[in-house]
């Protein structure tokens, strides 16, 4: 194996001349980044934009005050007729209302599939693209739990919402080595005649609570 490694690295150096860590660092700093970093909306405008984008993806969006979040969770789960919902460790208990909640305990694939839905928080939201970023952290859990159940509810604090992708990547810088999933609405495909169809393998139904 190391034979192939040496051969490929040699071929690369022969192809373009050898480089060095110092010269890489120096030229990296010169990359022009004149694209927009922040947006021009105020807080209310950012929340409006996030709501609009999520609705375009056919996700449910609910703007709620912090104190009412638990009641809204209960109402939404009951309206959808869900009885057993998976949650990660570290989720605030005041939100677990309205049905049976089971804390993830390294369930296997079949067990994950038996849940009606999943409820988590999020690390950051991106209004421009209607994207929510989940990481393996308390309240969000491992990647499989937000993938296998057919229904996903996500509670995003408005304070964790930014306007642009660039701002979001800046916020993720500190936790960049965690397992990370960006999701923009329910799973979808356009593989058949470029018609966007909601819901293939990930959750087909997504509700987002924007909590102020």
């Amino acid at each position, binding site marked *: 194996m190391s034979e192939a490694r040496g051969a490929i690295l040699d071929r690369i150096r022969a192809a*373009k001349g050898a480089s060095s860590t110092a010269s890489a660092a120096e030229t990296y700093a010169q990359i022009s980044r004149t694209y927009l970093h922040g947006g021009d909306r105020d807080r209310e405008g950012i929340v409006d934009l996030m709501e609009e984008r999520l609705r375009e993806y056919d996700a449910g969006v609910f703007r709620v005050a912090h104190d009412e979040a638990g009641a809204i969770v209960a109402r939404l789960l009951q309206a959808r007729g869900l009885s057993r919902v998976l949650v990660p460790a570290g989720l605030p208990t005041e939100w677990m209302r309205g049905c049976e909640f089971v804390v993830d305990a390294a369930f296997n694939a079949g067990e994950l599939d038996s849940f009606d839905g999943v409820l988590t928080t999020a690390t950051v939201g991106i209004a421009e693209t209607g994207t929510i970023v989940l990481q393996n952290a308390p309240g969000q859990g491992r990647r499989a739990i937000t993938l296998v159940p057919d229904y996903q509810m996500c509670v995003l604090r408005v304070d964790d919402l930014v306007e642009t992708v660039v701002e979001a990547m800046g916020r993720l810088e500190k936790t960049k080595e965690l397992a990370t999933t960006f999701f923009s609405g329910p799973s979808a495909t356009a*593989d058949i005649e470029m018609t966007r169809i909601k819901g293939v393998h*990930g959750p087909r139904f997504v509700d987002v609570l924007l909590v102020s």
Partner: protein
Amino acid sequence: MSRIPLDPRTAPSFQTAAKVSLQDAQLRKNVKHATEVIQAKRKKLVDEKKDWQELREAGRQIRAHSLAHLEIYLEEFERNFTRAGGVLHWARDAKEAQEIVVRLTKEIGADEVIKIKSMTTEEIQLNRALEAAGVKAYETDLAELIIQLGEDQPSHIVVPALHKNRAQIREIFMREMDLPDLGDTPQDLADAARTFLREKFLRVKTGVSGANFLIAETGGICIVESEGNGRMCLTMPETLIAVVGIEKVIPRFQDLEVMLQILARSATGERMNPYNSIWTGVHEGDGPKAMHVVLLDNARTDVLADGEGRQTLQCIRCAACLNACPVYRQTGGHAYGSVYAGPIGAILTPQMMGMEHAQSLPYASSLCGACYEVCPVKINIPEVLIHLRHKVVERSGWWAPEKVAMKAVAAVFRSEKRFRAAQRLGRMAEAPLVKKEKQVEGLVQLKGSETTTPGWIGWLPGLMGGWTDTRDLQAMPKETFRDWWEKR
């Protein structure tokens, strides 16, 4: 289309294969519809980005920089990926990569794998190698599933089954999934795929993928997708094997702020595709317990060695150039005889074949430049096409018609005497072929031009007939500029 994988070493020339595609009215209709829809979506979302050109330029610079310091970033990726619990393998060519993946499946005793759509595994014909070793590979991307079940070949980098319409897909699913009552809406077809694959996602213990980006700084991997099949394959199995071209590395996590913005808009005309996964090696209690990356050269270093062709490796596989190409939109992808179709395929494939095969591909273009205009990392595809045409001619013998003609022209243009003689000769030779100026309706005849309008040639013999097959050639003027100047 057949089960035989697209292979530039055995494929007919583009011009031959294109004639077959052009006869297929259904295929042309499907390709036209799909490319028009993606282009319209892309245009709308690119137009709303005020800083699109700045993002393109940053994208170009990040990719060019990564290639200029490729060995530094690969070694950095290796260190960080290994530290995070991953196992890195290096493969010089397709065969070596196949052997590594087959060996890994044997070591864990896997007789089936679930796959994320990956052009790199198509390139190395991995499914065939796995099959030969007794390992069944299940494609899980909807389009790849259509291709696999229909025993077809991919015709597009992002939407591999774009040449099939819903009726054709329904037929394949009814037959292969044994669903006699299947409906024909896209939703019915997607639901059928969900049910068909669900059991495999929950059961199969080994995943195989490609990758969109390798992040040197963290040893991280980024995969973008729409359906969630990718997330299934990269989180549910116990072992994940990713086959990745060496050019896919980017320096830092932060660079994704550019890449993610330009990729989704260019590829599918979305602000962001439904899912992006970014992870670093093995995460305790989250996803596979074993993570392998097979770094593949397979002639990429040859492309890197060509100063003008090198920019080809900047490609992030968005396929915007395919959708924009007036040639691809007529022929579809199979005519290119490679898994990489369209303008990017026309420059990538011949270079990866060391110019030994696929020599017709640099000519599969009108050089209109639409591909360059839409490329999110500003690969100057027309420039590379011309460079490769030059190489094709260089490689041919002295008797190659293009070479002989160019030599003759050079000799004539070097001397005024020869140039004037050639003009006289040309005027004599063309005389029997020239027809009088047709009276074109609406064309204003300039005063005095009745005597100087040279007329038109509708037929030329031999090789030169390539021009007059599709358009008329204006005859040489009776009086040249020099003659006129001297008479003043």
